[in-house]
């Protein structure tokens, strides 16, 4: 018997992820300013002297997280972007896991290895996912003529479908292992059909793995959104202005803000970049912590201590 230690990553991760979900729901309603509120260039009298106030403004009582170069309140932008960041990520991860589990189960249960599927998995594992997603959405996303909702739906569809092979691959391998066990053999000899075996015998054995994959996929989707942001493709549309060439996120989704403010790394006003970075890292960190917690939890339940 081993004594169970408190699994802190699991607890903290659960709390943080719940907080993020709540933030996604109430975010736009508790934002301190309107979305189009802009702090204009103006002068103020401080100690009898006239001072010109020029955005980007540093974090202060009026603007808790400061403003960006165009005078928009960063906290407001982040709160308005939160639903997109969180629910788009969750939607993609859920769809991936749902489709991937189904495909993996049905392909894993086949008597012969499915050559065509193996070659799909193989080819897909070489290509980083953000490249096909980027090229697919590039034509419609920059200065879009489609509504934001359509673009978000397009991204969800593309990222989910293109991510299926990697999820299906691990489910398939697990299914192939379980297919060989005695209890499946017993079920077959008792006359169980394919669905019976898959959903009564195989799925209960991999359900924990499916949960872990779901959370890890969430992190992967966030990374994908961040990478697309690096190359100026933002979820829900990129607004591109010419002269100077600038890219803005239309939904103010966190990865998009991070991407569009990345030029401020080198500036004298680093908070414009650091605050979206902190928000994005907070979201990724919460999900990674949850994933680690879940993984530790299942490992403690099933694994033996190594001898060496």
């Amino acid at each position, binding site marked *: 018997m081993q004594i169970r230690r408190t699994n802190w990553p699991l607890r903290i991760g659960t709390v943080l992820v719940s907080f993020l979900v709540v933030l996604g729901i109430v975010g736009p309603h508790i934002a301190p300013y309107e979305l189009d509120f802009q702090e204009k260039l103006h002068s103020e009298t401080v100690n009898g002297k006239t001072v010109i106030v020029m955005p980007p403004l540093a974090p202060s009582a009026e603007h808790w997280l400061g403003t960006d170069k165009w005078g928009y309140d960063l906290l407001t932008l982040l709160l308005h972007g939160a639903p997109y960041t969180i629910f788009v990520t969750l939607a993609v991860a859920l769809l991936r896991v749902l489709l991937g589990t189904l495909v993996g189960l049905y392909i894993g249960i086949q008597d012969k290895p499915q050559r065509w599927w193996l070659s799909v998995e193989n080819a897909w594992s*070489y290509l980083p996912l953000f490249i096909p997603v980027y*090229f697919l959405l590039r034509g419609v996303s920059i200065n879009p003529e489609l509504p934001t909702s359509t673009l978000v739906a397009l991204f969800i569809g593309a990222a989910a479908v293109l991510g299926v092979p990697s999820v299906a691959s691990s489910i398939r391998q697990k299914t192939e292992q379980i297919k060989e066990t005695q209890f499946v053999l017993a079920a077959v000899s008792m006359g169980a059909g394919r669905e019976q075996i898959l959903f009564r015998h195989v799925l209960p054995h991999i359900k924990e793995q499916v949960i872990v994959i779901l959370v890890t996929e969430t992190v992967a989707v966030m990374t994908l959104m961040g*990478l697309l942001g690096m190359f100026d493709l933002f979820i829900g549309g990129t607004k591109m202005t010419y002269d100077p060439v600038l890219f803005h996120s239309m939904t103010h989704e966190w990865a998009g803000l991070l991407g569009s403010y990345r030029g401020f790394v080198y500036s004298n006003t680093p908070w414009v970049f650091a605050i979206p970075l902190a928000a994005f890292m907070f979201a990724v960190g919460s999900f990674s912590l949850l994933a680690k917690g879940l993984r530790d939890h299942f490992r403690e339940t099933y694994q033996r201590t190594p001898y060496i």
Partner: protein
Amino acid sequence: MSYVRQLIGMFLLVVAVCGAPFMLYTDKDEVHVSPENVIVRTVYLLEQIADGSLGTYWVGNTERSIAQDIGPFALSTFELLFFSVLIAVAVSLLFGLFLQRFGAVHQLQRALDVIATVPDFVLIMLAILAAIQFYKWTGIRIITLSPFSDADNNWFPLTILAIGPTIFLMKGVSLKYAQIGGEDYIRTALAKGMGIWHILVHHVYKNVKPFLVADLKKTIAITVANLFVVEYLLNVVGLTRFIFSKDGGFEFNAAVMGLMSIVLLSILVYVLIRAILYLFERAFVYK
């Protein structure tokens, strides 16, 4: 024959990916889906290849020949890719397997676990920030952002590129190590009084290797994904320049040639790493 078929499949995949912006676009509030555009461009590309040239691409206002540039670009990309994956494999075998049982290594892994929660592209940006700060404090330059400089400090992009795959591979290897360490045959070997190095090499390594090889493809894919960010943010002149040019335009010919070369290079890297693992085994495992 099957290799040729796979290569043709790869080529078609690359063409489909690079052609996507011409396949799906909007014009006057209408979404156009027109796969025929891709076929026209592919035929044109194949004609140019048949002519012996690979076409041209634009850098700013200069038209340059792809065939002329692809060699040096591929070389620098290959260097980055190959050495990063090599570092990842060597480090994760060394610390994830052979030195795993020492306490200090556990601390190192815990630190890496924390770093691993940060997405790779953020790490790359933070590394640039850190390098600039380091220069401000000490005056020692470890980073060159100018693309016109000589590649005298290739090691900085290389180290940064190696972080992501190392973390991924190390995680996989040490997870397998913990699993295999709990097997009965390890206990038997220990009970028989075999030396720890003998067990590590002959029992643990041999059982970890299939998973290492299976993870190798994913490792290379991660390295390639990070390669795009490293070359883009650090201004390294390499193959990704054909695909994401900083000054705007997207060119089909260049993108296809760039992506196809990257795919071929990653296959080459995979084969080379397998060869190095084979040599390692000949020298240390099956002497």
